[in-house]
């Protein structure tokens, strides 16, 4: 079945739903959101904790409530939200092949917004050696298991080790403890504050060197920064953080990626390299909170409306890359509309001096008042890129620390 819509949004998480709601409310015409999971709402559906903003009365929202509200808002604005529907590939420019229980479809749109999110790298992608037992999870799988089955020993084990120091590791610890699973330790490669995880012992500067156990996991071998090794007895290990964008559709279309994030390169208005295709939310880099992703979805609506109005697609843009201890910077392209830079460091940098250079010429050098941490992004305001020559070469953001 061939159909045409005005805007096709792929992914009904916070970013996609926010974009759809804003677009539908702004008269973008027929706005359709595709969600491959059985229910719309994205990752917050599995996060039973506060931290998702507040409702109209100022009461804090948890993840599932936030997700329900986001879906409702998109529907009320007039968008169509379809769950259990998978976009499997491109049939041509702005045209996607779709599989659903109702059959195959080919949907053509005037604009496509990719909001496909991100995943945590599983054990294999982290190249952790050892056996391949049951009991090896990511936070995402852990949360979905609890949502689907409740706290079941055969899924969650009795004693777990959590790997990673990002905020999402705290979600994993909280989920496990609420399910009655003892958390033996949090193992994190960067040094982590001892009290970041409450009563759970934290092994900072430590890496997992091997998974042990046949059938079911029986332990994880670790090595500390001082070279000492130990085996932590556990029957579950949860690998957290270490996000990688779910960029399959972006790559299938040949959209260039930002090397540091592996997300599609966009300009400050979320335009990718291909006219009519936008990318928003954690597809751009993973790991940002739902509220940040949703704000991007809303912000992208203006450029999508420009596209629908027939305004020209600004080509090119100047590539921006991170260097030194900076892991990544987005957006990957600077265009005529100035946009703030979002920055993530590889390690903790206290009041670092950041530099912006283009073609080897320093444009800006400024000491940050706060510090950078590997688990938190920092936003650099517009003035940081104000001197960039849009006809010049790549812009490099670095740190003198």
């Amino acid at each position, binding site marked *: 079945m061939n159909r045409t819509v005005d805007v096709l949004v792929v992914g009904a998480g916070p970013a996609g739903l926010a974009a759809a709601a804003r677009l539908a409310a702004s008269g973008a015409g027929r706005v359709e959101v595709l969600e491959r999971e059985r229910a719309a709402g994205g990752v917050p559906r599995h996060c039973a904790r506060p931290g998702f903003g507040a409702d109209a009365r100022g009461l804090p929202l948890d993840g599932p409530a936030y997700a329900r509200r986001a879906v409702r808002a998109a529907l009320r604005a007039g968008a169509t939200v379809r769950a259990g529907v*998978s976009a*499997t590939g491109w049939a041509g420019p702005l045209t996607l092949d779709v*599989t659903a229980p*109702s*059959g195959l479809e080919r949907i053509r749109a005037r604009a496509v917004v990719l909001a496909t999110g991100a995943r945590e790298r599983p054990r294999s*992608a982290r190249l952790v*050696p*050892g056996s391949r037992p049951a009991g090896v999870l990511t936070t995402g799988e852990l949360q979905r298991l609890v949502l689907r*089955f409740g706290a079941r020993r055969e*899924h969650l084990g009795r004693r777990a080790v959590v790997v990673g120091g990002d905020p999402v590791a705290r979600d994993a610890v909280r989920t496990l403890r609420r399910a009655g699973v003892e958390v033996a330790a949090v193992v994190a490669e960067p040094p982590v504050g001892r009290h970041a995880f409450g009563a759970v012992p934290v092994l900072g500067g430590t890496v997992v060197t091997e998974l042990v156990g046949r059938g079911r996991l029986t332990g994880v071998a670790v090595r500390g920064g001082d070279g000492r090794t130990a085996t932590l007895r556990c029957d579950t290990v949860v690998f957290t953080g270490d996000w990688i964008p779910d960029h399959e559709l972006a790559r299938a279309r040949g959209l260039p990626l930002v090397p540091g994030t592996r997300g599609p390169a966009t300009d400050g208005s979320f335009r990718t390299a291909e006219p009519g295709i936008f990318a928003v939310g954690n597809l751009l880099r993973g790991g940002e909170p739902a509220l940040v992703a949703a704000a991007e979805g809303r912000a992208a609506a203006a450029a999508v409306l420009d596209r629908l109005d027939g305004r020209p697609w600004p080509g090119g843009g100047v590539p921006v890359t991170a260097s030194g201890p900076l892991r990544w910077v987005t957006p990957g392209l600077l265009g005529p509309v100035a946009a703030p830079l979002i920055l993530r460091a590889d390690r903790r940098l206290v009041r670092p001096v950041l530099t912006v250079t283009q073609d080897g010429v320093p444009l800006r050098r400024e000491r940050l008042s706060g510090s950078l941490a590997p688990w938190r992004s920092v936003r650099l305001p517009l003035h940081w890129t104000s001197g960039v020559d849009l006809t010049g070469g790549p812009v490099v953001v670095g740190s003198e620390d």
Partner: protein
Amino acid sequence: MSVTRTGALPVGADAAYDVVVVGAGVVGSAIARTLARHPLRIALVEASNDVGDGTSKANTAILHTGFDAAPGTLEARLVREGHRLLSAYARETGIPVEPLGALLVAWDEGQRAALPRLAEKAERNGHRTTRLLTAAELRAREPHLGPGGLGALEVPGEAVICPWTTTLAYATQAVRSGVDLHLNCSVEQVRPGDPYHRLVTRRGVLRTRHLVNACGLHADAFDALVGREDFVVTPRRGQLLVFDKFARDLVRHILLPVPGPLGKGVLITPTVYGNVMLGPTAEDLDDKTATGTTAEGLAGLREQGGRILPALLDEEVTAVYAGLRAATGQEDYRIAAHPGLRYVTVGGIRSTGLTASLAVAEHVRGLLADCGLDPGPERPLARLRMPNLGEAFSRPYRDARLIAGNPEFGAIVCHCERVTEGEIRAALTSTIPPGGLDGLRRRTRARGGRCQGHHCGAEVRALFEEYGPEKKGRGAR
């Protein structure tokens, strides 16, 4: 015909078999299937909870031509015949095969000088279509290759295949043709006798007139149970890395190393699932359960793989695993008939067992006749069509007619591998249902992709538990 996983084995007259094949790997399953053509009472007995759960599940998944076998050996003959037989069987039953052809790439002068000798060896093995490629021709064939390739030997006919579907096809056809499959049934003692041997298993005693040892890594230990000590199996570990599907466009052929004095090197090959595989290592071990990977092994593979195909290392790794080959210190199989014991040992099936499996089975049928088995007349086997797991062939999620008939084939559950609810339910209700989530993955690819269950793990588990023994124990969900 039956499949049992738990409980006592059949007793009395029912438990007397004409042939018991011990070991339901690719070789044992092929033997059971071949024997099932005859009006015999046959059991296929396996220690694990699934078929193909040892070396048969963790190998390089190549359908070899046998061009580099030692000429004149039994292995050379059975690999050559097996390639022909399995190619035809795969077409008939829907096992995915992609005949990509292989390139043996020379990276130094010594290797380049070895290529003509390998071509001659191939010719002695009956393969006359190999061709030497210049560096420029090699570059045109494989544009993403790293610098320094001096030339290559092209070997047409080398193919990639789905090893999981192959073993499952043999075992399924055997069961549908009347064979009893007893899983979770390791044989602990053998009491040879006449007219029946008695096999003491964890689940009871089986009686059989004839006995086949297809125990792979444990073939020497099983031989010892019947009082034979003809060889020792030394497990040779091969660690492998599987890269995400984005790597598939980087390589067009099976890239084989040129064997040399410094060892065999590693290969890079596409898989029928659309991934790229790098490996294997070759480590001689003592422990037949050491299927873990090591930091050194994985680092070494990445270093070697990065020289062959530099862009490969930019892609995500979707699986790391290790398999054990059954080496016996002899450059040939160890297949022997012991007529006095009405017993056939099928040992030392090293790296080529998948390719040779159907020819090994034919060979064993002959050896059993030498041991006094009168198989009786031949009849056709039960018909079989396997679900397709190959990317080069039509998959359910793109099949409008299938989805129109059953909407579950339009409900994708495992998004990375595009596995639908319909396929998962079909596997869970098939002739040999999976014993666990890993078995389900080998039947459908569910949870086998880049996210390794991050997105779909809970959903797949819920489907599995709908049909599993836990459901029965728990009552309705």
